[in-house]
């Protein structure tokens, strides 16, 4: 079996179609390609629109980083920053997102937002970290795409897409307005100013303003703008006032607007508002520039119109109805030759005159024709008394001479005028000023000055200053008297006398005359007791006096000093002099030898008594003493009676010092305090009288004679006693004792006068008290003084009120109240 060997096959591989062999894997690169191309196309398509914005400078703008924002949303990125061909501007190329690109048409505005600190606040703070960005503004209406824009460094006022109206203001002075100054309407910011610029002819400053909707609807031809920059200081009858709108307007200036009349006409294209300096100006020019087109009239004046200017008011019964538009002179041909007359053109607003709105010129003229026939005239009037500014007043006078509204051809109708009464006003003003001038202001001032001087002199018065000294001297003298050795020796002497008497009495008792002496001694004892009581009272009295000198008198003196300081001179000198004289006299009285010799005399008398007693004792003629003792008894009884009175006197004195004098001093103090405020004339007079009376009393013959009498009595007694002693004869003893008895009687008599003196002193004190009390409260004097003072006070208040009134409104002097 043959193994067939297959022939070698020539296997030529089939020619395979390229497409049949194509692997499905090829879809992958195709897909990848597709996707890649898709992405590429998408990114190309999304690349946005490239726009060109030119800036003066591009500080902070970085290509690839700085973004373009619209309402703070990023809508594009700066791609490139380069210069314009002439290097004059910086061109910033921004790739803007496609979805907003259609809105960026020719009106779009671009500006660079940077951090900014200004008077109106801080803005753009977010750019401190993130860097500046470009803000764009455009309206929401898609328009034709534009590619080139002018950018600004600051946000434009009228940003596209922001509703509102752009207006132009014209002013003479641009110093008070600046970029961004607010535009206010009734204090609310409704817009902003742009940068002021000069007009083409350089004569005025133009500034654009943008008023936000809906406030721009308020703008009509009746709208007036005025400057409210800074603050306003006003000083007038109502006082001093400072006024400014806002701090921002204070720094950057501001503009306010308002309608000056109702129903203003809509604004025509290109209307330029005038920016007035003050609200007053703005309102005053209502008629001059207002569209209501006042009806022109002319007024002829024969007197000077100095002080009248174009723009001044024309008023009717005080109401502003028109404005002066022009002043000119005119030549009138008269029979005597050409004559110059002044012609004032005015513009009258018919609506202000009460004519219905829309009245034609003819209606107005017709109205005035009728008014002139019923007496309406024009005349000059002053704006105010103190200014020379004039205005024109329309008045209706029944007494006016007949006149008619003349209507020359081609000229405004002419209102008749009458003489003004300007000169009368001047005369009145002069009269008022003269009266003011005639007021005796200088005399009043002189009197006031002299009054002041009088007070000063009084305070410096030497006499017044000397009073305390005199008082001190008086007190010193009194103290010296009280503390004199003689007086202090009295008790010792008395004791000695009593001892002697005791011895004598013992002898007498021994002699059997005890019974006679008993009563005498009892009397003496009583007398001693009385004296003792009196001397017990003495320290209290001294203490009282000391207390008074220590406490009350300084106070009184201080008060008196106050009184003296405030008192008027008048008769005070006299008073002081008389007081001094009184004090001196009292001083002299006390210092009188007679008074001072009293103690000595008493001592001597007691000495004599002692001697006599000793003599009597030594004589031993006790039996003869009977009648003598009886006499002595009587004398002693008298003395006793007198000394019984003495305690009463001292008690009185003490009472006076304890109760009355403090009271008196208190009264004096009160009086002094009152007197401090009162007129002193009467007081001084009264005080003077009182002191004179005291003076008279002290200086009276009786008082002066009192020590003399006592002295005489004592001398007499001494003489008698001496006689008794020298006689040395028992027979004479009777007479001697009789004499002693007489002497004692005299002493008793003298002593009997003491209560009278005391009573008189008491009366004096009472009188003084009454006088003093009469100045106390509720006294006539006081009431009268008070009422007088009240009247003075009322007068002062009236003057004060008047002064205040004048101060408050000085012009009331001129205008009346």
């Amino acid at each position, binding site marked *: 079996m043959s193994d067939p060997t297959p022939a070698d096959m020539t296997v030529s591989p089939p020619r395979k179609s390229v497409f049949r*062999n*194509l*692997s499905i*894997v*090829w*879809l*992958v*690169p195709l*897909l*990848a*390609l597709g*996707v*890649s191309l898709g*992405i*590429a196309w998408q*990114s190309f398509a999304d690349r946005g629109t490239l726009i060109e914005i030119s800036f003066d400078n591009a500080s902070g703008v970085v290509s690839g*980083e700085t973004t373009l924002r619209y309402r703070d949303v990023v809508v594009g990125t700066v791609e490139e920053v380069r210069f314009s061909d002439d290097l004059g501007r910086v061109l910033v190329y921004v790739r803007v997102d496609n979805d907003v690109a259609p809105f960026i048409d020719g009106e779009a505005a671009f500006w660079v937002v940077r951090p900014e600190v200004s008077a109106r606040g801080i803005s753009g703070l977010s750019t401190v*970290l*993130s*860097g500046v960005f470009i803000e764009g503004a455009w309206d929401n209406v898609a328009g034709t795409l534009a590619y080139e824009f002018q950018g600004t460094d600051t946000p434009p006022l009228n940003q596209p897409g922001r509703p509102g109206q752009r207006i132009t203001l014209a002013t003479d002075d641009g110093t008070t307005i600046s970029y961004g100054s607010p535009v206010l309407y009734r204090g609310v910011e409704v817009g902003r100013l742009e940068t002021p610029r000069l007009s083409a002819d350089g004569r005025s400053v133009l500034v654009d303003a943008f008023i936000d909707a809906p406030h721009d609807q308020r703008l009509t031809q009746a709208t007036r703008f005025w400057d409210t920059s800074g603050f306003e200081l006003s000083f007038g009858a109502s006082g001093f006032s400072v006024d400014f709108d806002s701090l921002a307007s204070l720094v950057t200036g501001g503009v306010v607007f308002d309608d000056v009349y109702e129903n203003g006409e809509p604004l025509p294209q290109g209307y330029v508002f005038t920016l007035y300096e003050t609200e007053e100006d703005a309102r005053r020019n209502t008629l001059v520039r207002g569209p209501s087109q006042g009806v022109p009239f002319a007024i002829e004046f024969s007197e000077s119109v100095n002080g009248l200017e174009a723009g001044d008011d024309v008023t009717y019964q005080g109401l502003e109805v028109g404005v002066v538009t022009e002043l000119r002179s005119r030549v009138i041909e008269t029979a005597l030759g050409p004559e110059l007359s002044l012609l004032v053109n005015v513009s009258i607003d018919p609506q202000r005159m009460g004519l219905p709105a829309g009245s034609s010129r003819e209606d107005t003229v017709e109205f005035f024709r009728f008014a002139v026939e019923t007496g309406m005239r024009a005349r000059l009037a002053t704006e105010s008394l103190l200014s020379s500014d004039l205005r024109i007043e329309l008045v209706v006078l029944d007494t006016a001479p007949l006149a008619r509204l003349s209507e020359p051809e081609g000229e405004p109708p002419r209102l008749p005028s009458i003489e003004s009464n300007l000169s009368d006003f001047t005369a009145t003003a002069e009269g008022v000023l003269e009266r003011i001038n005639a007021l005796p202001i200088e005399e009043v001032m002189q009197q006031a000055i002299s009054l002041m001087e009088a007070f000063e002199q009084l305070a410096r018065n030497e006499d017044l200053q000397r009073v305390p000294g005199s008082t001190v001297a008086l007190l010193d003298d009194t103290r010296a008297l009280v503390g004199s050795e003689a007086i202090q020796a009295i008790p010792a002497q008395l004791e000695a006398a009593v001892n002697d008497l005791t011895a004598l009495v013992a002898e007498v008792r021994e002699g059997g005359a005890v019974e006679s002496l008993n009563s005498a001694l009892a009397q003496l004892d009583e007398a001693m007791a009385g004296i003792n009581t009196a001397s017990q009272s003495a320290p209290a009295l001294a203490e009282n006096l000391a207390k008074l000198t220590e406490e009350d008198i300084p106070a009184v003196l201080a008060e008196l000093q106050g009184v003296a300081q405030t008192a008027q001179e008048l008769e005070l000198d006299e008073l002081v002099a008389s007081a001094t004289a009184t004090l001196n006299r009292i001083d002299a009285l006390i210092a009188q030898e007679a008074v001072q010799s009293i103690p000595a005399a008493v001592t001597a008398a007691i000495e004599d008594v002692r001697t006599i007693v000793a003599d009597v004792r030594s004589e031993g003629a006790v039996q003869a003493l009977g009648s003598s003792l009886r006499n002595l008894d009587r004398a002693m009884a008298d003395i006793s009676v007198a000394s019984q009175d003495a305690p009463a006197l001292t008690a009185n004195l003490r009472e006076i010092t304890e109760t009355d004098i403090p009271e008196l001093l208190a009264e004096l103090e009160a009086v002094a305090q009152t007197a401090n405020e009162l007129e002193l004339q009467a007081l001084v007079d009264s005080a003077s009288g009182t002191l004179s009376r005291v003076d008279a009393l002290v200086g009276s013959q009786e008082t002066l004679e009192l020590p003399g009498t006592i002295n005489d009595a004592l001398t007499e007694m001494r003489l008698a006693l001496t006689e008794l002693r020298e006689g040395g004869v028992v027979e004479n003893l009777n007479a001697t004792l009789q004499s002693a008895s007489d002497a004692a009687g005299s002493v008793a008599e003298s002593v009997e006068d003491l209560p009278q003196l005391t009573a008189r002193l008491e009366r004096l004190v009472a009188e003084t008290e009454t006088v003093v009390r009469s100045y106390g409260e509720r006294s006539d004097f006081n009431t009268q003084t008070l009422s007088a003072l009240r009247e003075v006070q009322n007068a002062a208040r009236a003057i004060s009120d008047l002064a205040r009134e004048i101060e408050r409104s000085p012009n009331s002097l001129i205008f009346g109240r």
Partner: protein
Amino acid sequence: MANAEHAQPVLTARAAGLVGCGECGHVYPMGTEACSVCGTELISRDMASLQRVWAWLFAGLVVYVPANVYPMLRTSTLGRTQESTIVGGVFDLIHHGSIGVALIVFVASVVIPVSKFIAIAYLAMRVHKRKPGTSSHFHLYEFVEFIGRWSMIDVFVVAILSALVQLNFVATINPGIAAVSFALSVAFTMISANSFDPKLIWDAPEGKPV
């Protein structure tokens, strides 16, 4: 070309009339349909692989373009956003003085992918032109297959940064389109390299006696 010099043509399994199993390596005589061990279809030469190589290579190339054109990283710092491409990032790094890092990024993101494209294309071209390869070509193929994964460094860096740096306003990093493109490109070239049947390197031109 030491191998080329001793000029001894390599004896391939195909020339020896054998076919090897691609999965388990068992050798069968030519014409055996399937591996008796693992059941895999036995193919001496996968001529279709070349198409896949080219297809994936093209896909990788296509995707590589946006990977370089578009930004890889989008960095936002304090409101400023910066986008950087691969090459731009390299230049930035050089500018900041990090030349070493720049070199690594450049090698990983540019040199390796590009050389991979070139290497794969070169090998595939040789197969097309039926030029018998040498062992050095085979080493080149092995190198390409090994190095391919390292190109993903860039993508990993981007992924990690994006995940970590999310500090809102202060700093934020987001991956750009290029990151995806680059990852795809690397993936495609790896698939391309894997698709290549290295046995084709050794084949002599058809019809020529070996």
